[in-house]
């Protein structure tokens, strides 16, 4: 059997299932804010798969939640780029049962569209700060950046949004 069996890990990693159980809900909410429905669920799958792939090689286990948010952030950024590149192929490969679900319009659609067009760090910073109501210190931990950088991303994001939605 391939895989890291009976290896002495330098860090004690919790069973991966416990990460899914503890964080699937909040990561989904984060992704809904970043990419909307139904992409959020696909991004969440991709997030956990990438995390599982890298998991045994992790050298630190203190901030697994922040690590998951970073991966989710990357997946959201990829999904938005794909969207921008192939705006007309949204329904390609979407299983028929998904198509039966009426397209979900978010209330305040215009604002969320504008959020989606922000640079990815500004978007993530705004979601952590306002959707999750986190202090800048915690925004920074979730994003793996300094508190100062978190503040700058939030204020730059707000400035850009104001311009967009007032137009």
């Amino acid at each position, binding site marked *: *059997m*391939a*895989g*890291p*069996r*009976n290896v002495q*890990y330098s860090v*004690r*990693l*919790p*069973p*991966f*299932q*416990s990460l*899914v159980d503890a964080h*699937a*809900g909040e990561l*989904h*909410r984060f992704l*809904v*804010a970043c990419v*909307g*429905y*139904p992409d959020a*669920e696909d991004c*969440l*799958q991709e997030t*956990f*798969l990438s995390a*599982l*792939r890298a*998991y*045994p090689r992790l050298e630190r286990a203190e901030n697994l939640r922040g690590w998951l948010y970073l991966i989710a952030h990357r997946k959201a950024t990829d999904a938005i780029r794909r969207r921008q590149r192939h705006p007309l192929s949204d329904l390609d490969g979407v299983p028929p049962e998904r198509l039966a*679900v009426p397209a*979900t*319009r*978010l*209330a*305040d659609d215009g*604002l*969320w569209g504008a*959020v989606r067009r922000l640079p990815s760090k500004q978007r993530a910073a*705004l*979601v952590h700060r*306002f*959707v999750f*109501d986190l202090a800048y210190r915690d925004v920074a931990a979730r994003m793996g950046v300094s508190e100062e950088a978190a503040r700058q991303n939030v204020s730059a994001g*707000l400035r850009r*949004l*104001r311009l967009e*939605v007032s137009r």
Partner: protein
Amino acid sequence: MTDLEQRLANLPDAGPALDLDRLQAELARRASRAGLLDVAYASADSPLGKLTVFVTRRGLVRMAYENEPDDLLLEELAEGVSPRLLRDPRRTDAARSELEEYFEGHRRSFDLPIDWSLVHGFAVGVLQATARVPFGEVTSYGEMAAEAGSPRAARAAGNALGSNPIPIVVPCHRVLHADGGLGGYSGGLDRKRFLLHLEGTLPASGR
């Protein structure tokens, strides 16, 4: 808070809620196909209560009665086998259906391959000898110690059997005291009595 900030805070939640079961099933399926799932687990109902079954690509690696708390079990597997561990009923189907057949009286031996990863030292010899004790027979701690190469280590054999990670399939319930007393059982003596009764070998005294 400005108006814009307030609108951001009101993340619309009009959309479909996250379907956790679908997420879990799809994640396990894709992880398995990509070779990223080292330990799959699921629980099964049995006459002895809920059983939790853990399998690797090698085979059955752990089984637990419900008196063992889930979180400790998962940690034990994460540390002793691999942290790439997910709930996946599909991968444990074969194990669960063999157990069901056993409890219904339709199966006398298990075809499941066993993964001995959680067994170390002296216990390897003791538990592998135990795995060869057939349905309908019983043996003693001393005999198992002798099979493992240390005829006088009956007590150590008892400890090894007490730490059996795969009860029922590695049939430590078939090991009794030489005088016919039931000895011990990590799942509780009631379960040991039940299994011996099912196999028709419960000593008359039933102690």
